């Protein structure tokens, strides 16, 4: 068993196990803890997949930002020191059965496809400036954000034809969207002073 495979299993088990733990835990704060473990392990999976930037973004934005926000929300809305909203056991069982059915659907669908037969993009991974073996995974991604696609255009022959499109415009749209959402959230959650009091 190679190191990467070993790490994959470690992260996969941590991610999946923590996800199941999130479902099973009744305490919201502990749910948040397991969620952190799960998301952190997912970030590890991203690193394994050569998507370093996505993994680091997952850590910075998701784990460091979003989840802190969630915990913040837990604290602000806690009516008791430890929240325990019991779910009806019958519902739990039903949800479990339905979830297993859904998992079955997904797994059977996944298994039904011969993924190995698909054309791989391994050769594209080698394009770029530093080989990915050096951990150089960022530059193609960064260039795609400013409108260049080295992963698609660098191996083209000749000078004719259209270059591939990058992600400059979506990137800007998402940025503006994020700003709008932040303003909106601040507005929604602002302290409301009641009229006349």
């Amino acid at each position: 068993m190679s190191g990467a495979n070993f790490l994959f299993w470690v992260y996969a088990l941590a991610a999946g196990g923590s996800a199941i733990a999130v479902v099973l835990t009744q305490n919201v704060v502990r749910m948040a803890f397991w969620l952190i473990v799960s998301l952190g392990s997912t970030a590890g999976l991203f690193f394994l997949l050569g998507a370093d930037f996505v993994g680091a973004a997952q850590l910075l934005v998701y784990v460091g930002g979003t989840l802190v926000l969630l915990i913040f929300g837990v604290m602000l809305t806690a009516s008791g020191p430890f929240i325990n909203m019991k779910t009806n056991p019958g519902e739990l069982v039903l949800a479990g059965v339905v979830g297993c059915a859904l998992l079955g659907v997904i797994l059977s669908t996944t298994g039904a496809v011969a993924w190995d037969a698909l054309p791989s993009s391994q050769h594209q991974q080698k394009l770029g400036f530093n080989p990915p073996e050096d951990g150089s995974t960022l530059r193609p991604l960064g260039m795609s954000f400013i409108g260049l696609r080295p992963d698609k255009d660098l191996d083209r022959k000749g000078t004719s034809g259209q270059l591939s499109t990058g992600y400059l415009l979506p990137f800007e749209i998402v940025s503006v969207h994020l700003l709008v959402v932040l303003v909106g959230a601040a507005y929604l959650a602002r302290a409301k002073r009641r009229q006349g009091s």
Partner: protein
Amino acid sequence: MDPQTYQSTGEMLRNLLTLAWLLPLAGFVLEVFAGYWSHRLSRAAAYSAVFCIAAGFVCSFAALMYWGHQTHWSALESHASPADHHDVLKYFSGTYYTLAEFGKLRIAIDYHIDSLTLVMFTMVTLIATMIHIFAIGYMSDELTEHYEDHQVHTAHGHFHRPGRFYMFFAYLSLFSFSMLGLVLAGNVFQVFVFWELVGVCSYFLIGFYFERKSASTAANKAFIMNRVGDFGFLIGLMILWTWFGTFQFNERVESDANGRDVVMPGLFDMLRDDHGNVTVLPANDHDSYARVFLADPGHSGALKHEGHKEGKTMPYFLLVVAGLGIFAGCVGKSAQFPLQTWLPDAMEGPTPVSALVHSATMVAAGVYLAGRFYPMFLPEVLLTIAYVGCITLFMAATIAVVATDIKRVLAYSTISQLGYMMLGIGVGGWTAGLFHLITHAFFKSLMFLCSGSVIHGCHHEQEMPKMGGLIRKMPITAYTMLVGVIAICGLAIPGISIFGIKIAFSGYHSKDAIIATAMTFSQLNGSHFLLFVVPLLGAGITAFYMFRLWFYTFIGQPRDHHVYDHAHESPVVMWAPLIVLSFFAAFVAFKGEAGSLFKLLLDTEPASVAHGLHDVGLAGDLNFPSHVGIEENHKAAGLYALLVAVMGTTLAYLFYGARVLNPAEVKRQFAGVHNFLVEKWQFDILYDAAFVRPVHVIAKWFVAFDRNVLDGFLHATARTAVSIATLDRRFDETVVDGLVNLVGNVTYDAGRSLRYVQTGRLRQYVMFIVLGVVGIWIVMRLFAA
């Protein structure tokens, strides 16, 4: 003058006059909006109005000076006209903008500039400027948020309204713009448009206090009376258009499709030849009535005449009708017999309006048009004009003798003086009539402003019997008024002249000219001696009633101490214009017929006037005096007129100044005549009986017809519609509504049954989604297999 100078001079004049014409319009727009922008206590509107009209005066005066400089105070003449088939052009005309062309009918904004235009421009803008300035003082009680109108009574006492200071000045500006546009107009249709604009402005201004019933009635009366005259005007326009095919006064050079210059003749060019003569073709075997030859080079199937001109003919009587129609417009506008009744009632407007209406703008428009259109008038029409003027001057003068309202006296005097002008034009004294128009404008505006000053000083008291002795309270007004009175009476010191200049005010010269013309005319046409006698008599009456007014108002003991005690001299903004105007009233006709004003007008005189006409008219028995003939009679006529005027003055002094004679006794002795005169020759009663009552009766008939026949028909229709609608409603209620309700109910029931799925529980929805996905997957598997 060579063509280049002619062209450049003309363009310079056009530019200046256009500016002077459009400035009041700009002022109007500014003031209307200024009323919204600023508050009601602001005088900004007045200042902008004064600025605009004063700037207009400066432009007009500059134009006049420029004219004088370029022509050395002679005519603007081009000895080589563009098309080179005409010898002399005494005017400069052209087109600003062609609004529309329908076949031959061409509606355009033209201009026509000659010395008459210039003089009118200068006169109108000068007088209007003075009146604007005067009005700043006179209308100052409108500068308030709560104007109390003492003459309007409501259930809660006097009527209150916000002041309309800015609106007044906006109307004044529009009025000036309209009058200037009328003067500048280059075709008769454009004249008509501005004619109506003048009318509507006078309607606004006479009805300025429209809350007062009398004011709104007077405004309506003025408007309706003018419409009667305008009806004739329209008929005249139609005839002209039908036979002449153009509205243009004078010829116009136009490029045809091949790029060649084509001369489109104007009205005057078609009717008159170069010497101002009309060619009349008498009735013969083929034609039962006489015809007039019209030169029209563009006319197809033209007949040759006199060797070089092509043209066509029109019936003589139709041209007479056209002339009478146009003159009917002038009658309405200038308040001539029989449409004179609106003018005294127009005194309901504020006094500056009266001054403007009576001197420079509205009534002047009629005389101006009669003068401008003189070439189109055939001898029969001129005779009619003369008689109308004659009747008017006498009638109005007699009424003025008994009137007691200070403004009404002036109003009737205006009518009377307009009669003089019409008479002057009618008897062939074209220059004399327009000369009197200009001089009269100055002294009449002066007198109206003086009366305005008196009214203002006496707190809106207009009845002369309540005044008297005011010369001690308001000396400036009194003396300036005296200047005007002397001017209108035509007083002079006979026989003495300093450096060859008669010692006389403007009215002496102009009235002299008219009476001289009338005298010559009556000598030439013995049967029309009344045309001389009546104006001569009128001159005496004029002197009598004008001095009556002056003595009544300013001399003697105060008759009403309440009025007298509160009387005061007007502020400087009001008496300053009086001084300026009195200067012009005295000296505008400086040197009389040798003076520059008369010469300027003489430049524009139609070609046919100077040498007189002999044995013209359809009957061939009319003679019109030549300049030479008039000159012979001039001295005698002047003496007669002066004599009569002095007699009138003396009589007035005896009655009202020295009080040797008692006017009350005279009144008692001639009670019937007095009543007849006080009732304004019964014209209002006559019109009431002749027009208003029949109209009422006919209206009653129509009401009855409406009630019985039309209403019955309508009611029957309505009942039918209602019964059909009832049936339709049943159909709607049962069938249509039933269908709609069915759909609605089905939807509603479906919704009700589905509402149980809508539990509001988030978690169940998630379950539904998952179950849905799984279900779809199962179905797909089943069917895929």
